């Protein structure tokens, strides 16, 4: 916490990555790392799990033999459909749940240990605070638990644009304000590792844009961010790498481009009349699994160099082709492919 002893001028010098945004609503100041040296320099991974498994007493296998590696300094997106095991995984990494089997190292230490907790800030699932306390007093309570000087509270309140409402009780907050207070609490320690569960949930469009910008900027100085989300667009815009979890298993991991490439990546989009005749013809020429109907068009998982021959074939068979172009698969397509067929190998 040496940062706290520095004067303003010295702070700028020590942490030159001042964050600024176009928005007039707020300007970001650097949230310094809790310490500049330590586990961060010695580790390749901020989070590393081996065979992590959690089976609840009800018999539900929420996390199944999960091997996850989040590199130091990256923004890692944790994607998965509802019930895939995302939040359970984050709870395991935060020490809130005890694993059934497997191991995990978080910020260089066992999850839930003081050494690990001191280096991480987390917002897991719903932001949970004391309803009878104000936003500021809730942060004071957290600061006391974490042995953090209360001088850290105002900067994080300003960062999440809650300064004006900080004196109001938490129970009067809107969903978006609760979410922002949750992020403020996670940032209070100036953690090396930030774990955020659905951080833009409940935010208005402007708040969502600013939160994404904040997340990207937070990794400045080597901070690692692990965020779970069901918003594919958010992950695509924010994350360096993505892990996709389905039924408790990690089914794919890599950059967004790598995942696209893995599941076909580039495709051909064909708009033709009659569509059924075109589909039957292409399924006979190509493999049926390479032909998919997407609304009024066909999406073909083939090499784009085949476009001309496919066009010739369709025309020769009396099909009118009104559009034929290369289509890049969206992350949503990739996500659906991966989560509907979780048996596929990892990228």
């Amino acid at each position: 916490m040496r940062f706290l002893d520095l004067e303003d001028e010295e702070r700028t010098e020590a942490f030159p990555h001042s964050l600024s945004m176009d928005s007039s609503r707020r300007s970001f100041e650097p949230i310094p790392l809790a310490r500049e040296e330590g586990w961060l320099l010695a580790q390749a991974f901020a989070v590393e799990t081996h065979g992590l498994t959690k089976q609840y007493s009800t018999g539900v296998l929420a996390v199944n033999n999960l091997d996850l590696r989040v590199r130091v300094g990256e923004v890692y997106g944790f994607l998965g459909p509802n019930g895939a095991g995302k939040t359970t995984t984050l709870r395991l990494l935060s020490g809130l749940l005890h694993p059934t089997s497997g191991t995990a190292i978080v910020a260089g230490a066992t999850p839930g240990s003081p050494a690990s907790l001191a280096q991480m800030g987390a917002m897991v699932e719903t932001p949970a605070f004391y309803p009878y306390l104000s936003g500021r007093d809730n942060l004071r309570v957290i600061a006391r638990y974490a042995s953090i000087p209360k001088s850290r509270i105002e900067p994080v309140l300003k960062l999440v644009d809650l300064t004006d409402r900080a004196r109001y009780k938490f129970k009067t907050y809107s969903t978006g304000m609760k979410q922002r207070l949750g992020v403020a609490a996670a940032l209070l320690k100036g953690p090396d590792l930030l774990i955020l569960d659905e951080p833009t949930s409940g935010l208005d469009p402007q708040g969502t844009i600013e939160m994404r910008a904040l997340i990207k900027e937070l990794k400045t100085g080597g901070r690692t961010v692990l965020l779970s989300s069901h918003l594919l667009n958010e992950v695509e815009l924010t994350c360096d790498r993505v892990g996709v979890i389905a039924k408790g298993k990690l089914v794919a991991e890599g950059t967004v481009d790598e995942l696209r490439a893995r599941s076909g990546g580039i495709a051909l989009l064909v708009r033709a009349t009659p569509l059924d005749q075109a589909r039957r013809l292409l399924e006979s020429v190509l493999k049926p699994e390479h032909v998919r109907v997407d609304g009024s068009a066909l999406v073909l998982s083939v090499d784009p160099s085949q476009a001309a021959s496919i066009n010739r074939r369709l025309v020769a068979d009396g099909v009118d082709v009104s559009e034929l172009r290369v289509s890049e698969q969206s992350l949503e397509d990739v996500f659906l492919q991966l989560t509907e067929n979780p048996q596929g190998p990892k990228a």
Partner: protein
Amino acid sequence: MIASFRAETLKNRKRWANWILIGILLAWILLLTYLTLFLVVTLSPKSIQGPVPASVIKRRLFPENFVPTVLQAAASIGAAITLIFGALSTASEFGWLTVQTILIQKPTRAGVLFGKFLALGLATVLVGVAMFVAAALASYTAVTLDGSSSAWPAWDVILKAFGALVLQLAVWTAFGAFLGIAFRSAAAAIGGGLTYVFVVEVLLGNLLRTTPIVKEVLKFLPGINGDAITAAFPVTIRDSSAQTQLVTAGRGVVTLLVYLVVFTAASLLIWQRRDVGGS
């Protein structure tokens, strides 16, 4: 643990429900224990008075008897209020999910729990002080209004009584906190705790006190042991319905200390092992 203690004291101080509980406790002592009896004894016609003269009954309210009076309040309303206080303190963390917020800060789970129990202990001492001061002021007011004279108990008696009061309140607070952790629900913890206090301790403790087998079981109950400690303090007018104590005051102190340790240890055991969140 110190960090958690500081956080817990801030929460306890800012929580209105705690101040309301203390208000109810003090109002009970001042209004029901002192004012009501004072008015009944002073204003009721002689025809409805029993064989004991009003002037003698009234002495129960005077400074010479304020120690046993406040200890008896501790055994009934004091037990209920501090049990609710302890249960709210722990069960609310599960209800609001704030348990996960505090467990992902720096301290260990044990550190968080010991900080919480330490803060509850401090609050219990302060509640004990408030009860003593309220009872002393009421006693002083009663004797002044009556125009009588009454001696205060010796300092060593007051100090021992204060210790006895805090010990009893601490056991009920710890019991409430344990139930809150075990049930993870304030309603279940308070409902279960109050049912135990009033059905098992008060009802069965009075009705089946002479039944041989039950009597042996009763000897181990915290309320019965608390009563034995209270009965050890001198009172100038004893209630004619007062019952013989089942255990000695010394055994009562030891039993309550054991309960304090057991409730704390059991709470820690559950707190350490419990998964937070998930199904």
